[in-house]
């Protein structure tokens, strides 16, 4: 217990410190984790003490990452990007593998090692690049979309690469490192194991497709958040165990499971639940990588590392740039694409680790290679800065068309599709606007999805869910939930995180109206007000009042009430209870004087307002029937 707590302390402290520093400097968390590993590795001997256990644990990070990547895959988007995905991604991977393998051979490595280097070099850092593109708001731009397509292809290409390494390592070598994965299949004939393997994949796909929805919905209806988190983890761990049992890559299984669940309404909820675990475990993984780096090796080989790092970036960039040009990603987008993807990525560590385990590479070679990948990742922010520079230069020369690289226009988020939000949703849809809908009732979400609306299960009050729904780039947020305090929280969070967004919100009552105003809402609707006015109008009509007279009286009533509401806004101090705010109390008695008088029976003021505009200028004697109005100037 003591040992475990001590490791946890070291790990968490180093992670927090190093990641904070690394993020501040703009290097991203991956570099921070590796640096933390470098520091604590030698000091606490983590690499030796229980490193096997730690590594196995941290490999869950990779599995979860692939699960999340699978979740991110929207079949429609993949179809839209198919040309870039297969053409651009495929050519990039093939060309890089070829070029780096050739370079490896020229430097005296054998072909297996060259091929492994090629695999490692062909992959870019999904974590760093997507994070950076997202931060800069460039993900939806031409260059960003091309980068995304290539990264997606690379992530998919990892799977055959992982399968390839044991093959090229040869059956004789590295038998020592077997995790005992395929224990179940060892004694079976080839065809039986093949059937079993296929069956396992089938089980994952079928379970994710048919079983997940009812199970998740049941859990969601229970309303126990931690059970949902547990279920999400269960999915990933279950897939891992099943895949390991049949000797397949757990990462592949997790990816498949993710893809199948990508279209589920629980997608955002799953993402949000797995994300922190993935982050921490992936961090642990990067730290174990860092812990394996021997500073002495770096000092002894710094020239090799530096040369290889720049060589790697140069080769990748030289392949990416012409490919981009060929696929009509030119100008600023082309440079963003080329320099953004020129580093090696986190999957390189995985490949190197396995290669080392299988005896393909010697431990010092693995260490040097890890250093090269790390430095290429560290240089990524500089590469993005460089692409920015080039874009500025291009702009000065005016050689490219403007607005080629703009982020997308922005979306509508509708929080809550209950009795209120449903109508908002229907009217928006009828007018050709498709909002992203959030609601915490799974059955409601299900219902809305039938109309092809992007709707997601989850508590709209959770900032991460709002962010996943695209709050940062949304143009309009409509808060239609019935919990007043939650609504206020959402409004103030949204206003802080996206100052330019328009916010329309449903208010519970007058006081809530003022709180929402204070929280930063643009337009506020009192949920009961309009319906009540309608009912009152119907009552007047039923009592025999002329319908147009009723309409005018409704309009004046609403105007007076709204004006009173606005007048009062200046008197409200949301932090002081209304009853103990003398100014508010005085003002409350003052609002809507006209209506209040009319309510007391003194209707002349109200009548005058209603009838204004149809008073004859020269009214004759009383007994004379009157008609007409100002049909002549007086």
């Amino acid at each position: 217990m003591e040992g475990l707590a001590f490791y946890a302390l070291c790990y968490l402290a180093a992670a927090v410190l190093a990641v904070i520093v690394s993020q501040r400097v703009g290097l991203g968390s991956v570099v921070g984790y590796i640096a933390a590993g470098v520091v604590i590795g030698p000091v606490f001997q983590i690499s030796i003490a229980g490193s096997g256990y730690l590594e196995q644990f941290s490999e869950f990070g990779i599995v979860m990452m692939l699960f999340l990547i699978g979740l991110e895959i929207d079949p429609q988007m993949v179809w839209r990007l198919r040309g870039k995905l297969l053409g651009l991604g495929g050519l990039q991977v093939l060309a890089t593998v070829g070029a780096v393998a050739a370079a490896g051979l020229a430097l005296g490595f054998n072909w297996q090692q060259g091929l492994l280097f090629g695999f490692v070099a062909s992959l870019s850092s999904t974590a760093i690049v997507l994070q950076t593109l997202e931060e800069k708001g460039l993900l939806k731009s031409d260059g960003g979309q091309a980068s995304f397509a290539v990264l997606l292809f690379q992530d998919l290409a990892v799977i055959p690469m992982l399968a390839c390494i044991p093959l090229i390592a040869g059956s004789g070598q590295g038998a020592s490192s077997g995790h005992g994965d395929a224990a179940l299949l060892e004694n079976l004939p080839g065809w039986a194991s093949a059937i079993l393997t296929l069956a396992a994949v089938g089980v994952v796909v079928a379970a994710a497709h048919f079983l997940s929805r009812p199970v998740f919905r049941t859990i969601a209806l229970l309303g126990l958040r931690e059970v949902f988190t547990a279920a999400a983890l269960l999915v990933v761990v279950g897939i891992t165990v099943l895949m390991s049992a049949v000797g397949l890559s757990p990462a592949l299984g997790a990816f498949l499971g993710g893809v199948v669940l990508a279209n589920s309404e629980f997608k955002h909820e799953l993402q949000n639940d797995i994300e922190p675990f993935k982050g921490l475990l992936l961090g642990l993984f990067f730290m174990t990588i860092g812990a394996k780096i021997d500073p002495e090796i770096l000092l002894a080989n710094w020239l090799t590392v530096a040369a290889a790092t720049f060589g790697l970036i140069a080769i990748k960039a030289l392949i990416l740039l012409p490919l981009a040009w060929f696929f009509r990603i030119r100008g600023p987008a082309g440079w963003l694409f080329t320099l953004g993807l020129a580093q090696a990525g986190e999957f390189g560590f995985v490949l190197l680790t396995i290669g080392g385990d299988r005896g393909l590479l010697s431990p010092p070679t693995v260490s040097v290679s890890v250093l090269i990948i790390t430095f290429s990742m560290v240089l990524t922010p500089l590469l993005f800065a460089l692409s920015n520079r080039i874009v500025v230069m291009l702009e000065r020369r005016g050689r490219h068309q403007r607005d080629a690289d703009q982020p997308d226009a922005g979306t509508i988020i509708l929080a809550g599709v209950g009795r209120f939000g449903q109508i908002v949703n229907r009217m928006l849809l009828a007018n050709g606007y498709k909002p992203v809908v959030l609601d915490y009732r799974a059955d409601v979400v299900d219902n809305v999805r039938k109309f092809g609306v992007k709707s997601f299960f989850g508590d709209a009050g959770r900032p991460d869910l709002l962010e996943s729904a695209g709050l940062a780039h949304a143009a309009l947020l409509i808060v239609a939930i019935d919990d007043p305090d939650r609504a206020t929280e959402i409004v103030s969070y949204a206003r802080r995180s996206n100052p330019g967004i328009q916010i329309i919100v449903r208010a519970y009552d007058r006081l809530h109206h003022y709180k929402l105003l204070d929280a930063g809402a643009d337009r506020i609707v009192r949920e009961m007000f309009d319906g009540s006015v309608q009912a009152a109008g119907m009552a007047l009509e039923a009592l025999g009042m002329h319908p147009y007279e009723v309409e005018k009286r409704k309009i004046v009533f609403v105007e007076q009430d709204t004006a009173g509401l606005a007048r009062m806004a200046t008197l409200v101090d949301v932090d002081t209870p209304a009853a103990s705010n003398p100014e508010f109390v005085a003002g409350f008695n003052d609002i809507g004087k006209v209506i209040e008088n009319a309510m007391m029976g003194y209707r002349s003021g109200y009548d005058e307002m209603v009838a204004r505009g149809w008073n004859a200028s020269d009214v004759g004697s009383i007994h004379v029937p009157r008609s007409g109005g100002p049909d002549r100037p007086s």
Partner: protein
Amino acid sequence: MRVLVLFAHPAQRKSSVNVAMASGARQLGGVTFVDLYAEYPRFSIDVDREQRRLMQHDVIVFQFPLFWYSTPALLKQWQDLVLEYGFAYGPKGKTLSEKYAIACITTGGSKSDYSEEGGNRREIRNFLYPLEQTAGLCGMEYLPPFVLHSANHIDDTGAQLHIRAYPQLLAALRDDRFDLAALRQRPTFDSFDLTDLVRN
């Protein structure tokens, strides 16, 4: 003939003559009476329904108080929406041709106000010219308007005379007892002229 009365008055609580006229018309059998402000208090006119009504009648009566030398806003809205191209006018818009249009109006100004020498410098028929031309463009025959001047000052006898004359006028149109040839000779007519124009 089938008679349709389109009544437009936004402030009926203040009207005596028009509302009294309207109630006479409403009670008349064989005449369709429509209170436009009651049917469309939010100005959202049902165009199909209004066009069907037009097709089902031969005489369209526009009853309204004159506001700023024109129809009340809703009646203008009615014209804008209902008299569609292809329905009321245009090469294929012949639906209203051969029908009659007649305006039955009240004015605040006196008969002398509505003369070349008066404050308004024109006779009343001139102010209704947009309506007259609208009817003409739709292929309808525009009949001289039925007018009550000084509706704000009229004594009770004059008011009652007009209020009683109005349903008689509508009934005469309905029963084809109206001497249209004689009517066409006049610029406008009022309750006193009615005895000369209606056959018994």
